[in-house]
């Protein structure tokens, strides 16, 4: 079996299974956790608290006006590469063909040239993000292996993908195989590292927001 | 449906017609390439050639190219295994060669930039063989009484 066949065959099958298992495990485990009982008298009704939670989900996704100057650049970087990633993942024809055969639905693609531009931009932003992480003192102290590895695996998928489309670094099959294989690795790593934020980010903001608003905090 | 031409096709994009008179960018590039090779030949360089097959040309482009080069004064016909023609174009030293097989099918076409098309000159050993042949013939004739 050659590399491509292995990568999109057994390796993908296992990776997909591990991914689902891990994601469901962590979501179910998280959802069933007991929330610490609050003995204080609630400041807000449950309905109001939930509305507060929804507001918090939105407002936490935007720089707080007081800190815009300090955190704005970082958030812009973050938004930039996330949007780039979504476009490259969802609007590139071969990726759509991939999803199509997995889920049976397809959608229109963007021209390859546009995708190439976005992936190069995304790659550049990812480099900038890494640079910021290692140069920013606080951020550096907060970072652990998980942060760097999650960055590495995401970037690896992009780099191998770019190499495959640009036909550099070796025969196309090999690079394509590496690209799919690195994606398989990403799937496996996903639920167990910080990439899991994709599933956690909004629920945790909502839950925190609701709990805080129940206590009477402004959202 | 037995012939290629009978299969219905729909033309998606028409290449610009030759009749527009303006020379296409592709043809201009070939003309410039020929000019460069002529210069090189004049400066004592190697003769060159441009394979017509390697150039994706529409019939219109071809017409334009032929017209731009113009008709010349030399025509050579090769009669080995099918008739092949080499025509000098209006630009001296630029030869338009079309090689055909026994069935008259075009098997190679190119523009040659040379004093004389490379296929024409005879190699020394060939000359010697010719001389031998003639001598043998002459000797044979001499031996035959009454001739």
């Amino acid at each position, binding site marked *: 079996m050659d590399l491509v066949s292995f990568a999109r065959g057994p390796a993908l099958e296992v990776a997909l299974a591990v991914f689902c298992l891990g994601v469901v495990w962590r979501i179910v485990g998280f959802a069933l956790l007991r929330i610490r009982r609050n003995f204080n008298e609630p400041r807000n009704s449950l309905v109001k608290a939930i509305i507060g939670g929804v507001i918090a989900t939105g407002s936490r996704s935007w720089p707080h006006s007081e800190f815009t100057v300090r955190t704005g650049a970082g958030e812009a970087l973050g938004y930039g590469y996330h949007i780039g990633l979504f476009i490259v993942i969802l609007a590139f024809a071969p990726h759509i063909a991939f999803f199509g055969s997995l889920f049976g639905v397809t959608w229109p693609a963007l021209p390859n040239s546009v995708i190439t531009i976005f992936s190069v931009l995304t790659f550049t932003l990812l480099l900038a993000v890494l640079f910021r992480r290692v140069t920013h003192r606080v951020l550096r102290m907060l970072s652990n292996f998980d942060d760097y590895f999650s960055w590495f695996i995401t970037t690896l998928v992009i780099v191998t993908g770019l190499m495959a489309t640009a036909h550099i670094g070796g025969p196309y099959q090999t690079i394509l195989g590496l690209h799919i294989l690195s994606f398989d690795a990403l799937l496996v790593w996903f639920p167990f590292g910080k990439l899991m934020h994709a599933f956690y980010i909004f629920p945790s903001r909502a839950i925190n927001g609701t709990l805080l608003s129940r206590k009477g905090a402004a959202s | 449906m037995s012939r290629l031409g009978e299969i219905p096709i729909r033309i998606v994009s028409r290449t610009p017609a030759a009749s527009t008179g303006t020379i296409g960018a592709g043809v201009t590039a070939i003309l410039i390439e020929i000019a460069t090779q002529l210069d090189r030949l004049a400066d004592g360089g190697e003769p060159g050639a441009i394979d017509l097959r390697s150039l994706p040309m529409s019939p219109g482009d071809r017409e334009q190219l032929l017209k731009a080069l113009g008709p010349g004064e030399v025509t050579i016909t090769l009669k080995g295994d099918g008739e092949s023609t080499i025509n000098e174009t209006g630009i001296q030293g630029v030869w338009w060669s079309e090689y055909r097989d026994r069935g008259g099918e075009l098997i*190679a076409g190119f523009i040659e930039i040379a004093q004389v098309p490379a296929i024409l000159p005879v190699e020394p050993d060939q000359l010697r063989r010719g001389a031998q042949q003639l001598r043998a013939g002459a000797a044979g004739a001499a031996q035959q009484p009454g001739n």
Partner: protein
Amino acid sequence: MAHYHDQPTIGEMLERHGVSRRTFIKYCTAMASALALPPLAGRAMAEQLRAALRPSVIYLSFQECTGCLESLIRSFSPSIENLIFDVISLDYDDTLMAAAGAQAEMARDKAMKDNYGKYVLVIDGSVPTGANGAYCALGGKSAVDILREAAKGAAAIVCVGTCSSFGGVPFADPNPTQAWPVSDIVSDKPIVNVSGCPPIPEVITGTLLQFISTGKVPDLDEYRRPKVFFGNTIHDRCYRRPFYDQGKFAKSFDDEGARNGWCLFELGCKGPTTYNACATTKWNGGTSFPIESGHPCLGCSEPNFWDKGSFYSALSAPRWGKAGEVSPGDVLKVVGGAAAVGAALGVASAGLSRLRQRHIEKSTTNNEAKES
């Protein structure tokens, strides 16, 4: 080049058959053009060939369908007549030769003896090794034995077709005859693989001619294919490439995209991973090639092309399971199964942490009670 055996050079041979130097140059030029070599390379090749000795070629067919030979005899430039009679001395080919039976075998043995160490061995078809090689036998000898014997005295081996190069269809899972490519059986001779199912005729003759004219094995890629012909993918040279780049794809064989000649990637085109000369040399004397006729590339010049799932599923599509095809149902099975296990694990881990939480709470309340 030295004359041994008082053998005539190819040039002299040609002359004797009334093929003039110019005619030969004509064919070699056509050949070079068909192979997208520079036009002057044809003349150089013609001169080299004329000075060379006519090599003995032994063509052995094993577990094959004769498609490769069918392809070879449709070589346009040079045509097979030119090749056989002028440039090579085809001393054995059981399909093309007039002799049959013991006579044919004798001719082969004689050619092998007379030209020991100098002949070019052309192999077509895979070599079955199961049941002691009984699946393919000629004149009472098994293909494996014949190959081993013939390989001993060969100057080089040219494998024509994907079967002899990579095992081909007989090699496909579960390989009932235990067929192997030549390179798995012979290891001490230079081997050139001219893969394809079948290979392009001009590529077969081109490889032979190049070998004869230079006397050297050409530059080979990782699969021992001559780089001149297998240096680019179909995708690299495909005239539908602009559509690929624009993201315009035919989704079925009769939709608008197919009629407009859009890229066939989604219909399963293997062009991006297939190294061959189809897009440039084309077929039937340069008439067209599969993609030009509206069919995706099958990837027939690549190893295991028959075991890579459907010809019609996109290259980037995942594949696993028996048929090598993934349906949303299969995905659901894998995903569903994994999700069920994940859910169970989730319930268990939440339960565990609840227990721990309760335990901690109990001990803290106890402590608080004690303290007060």
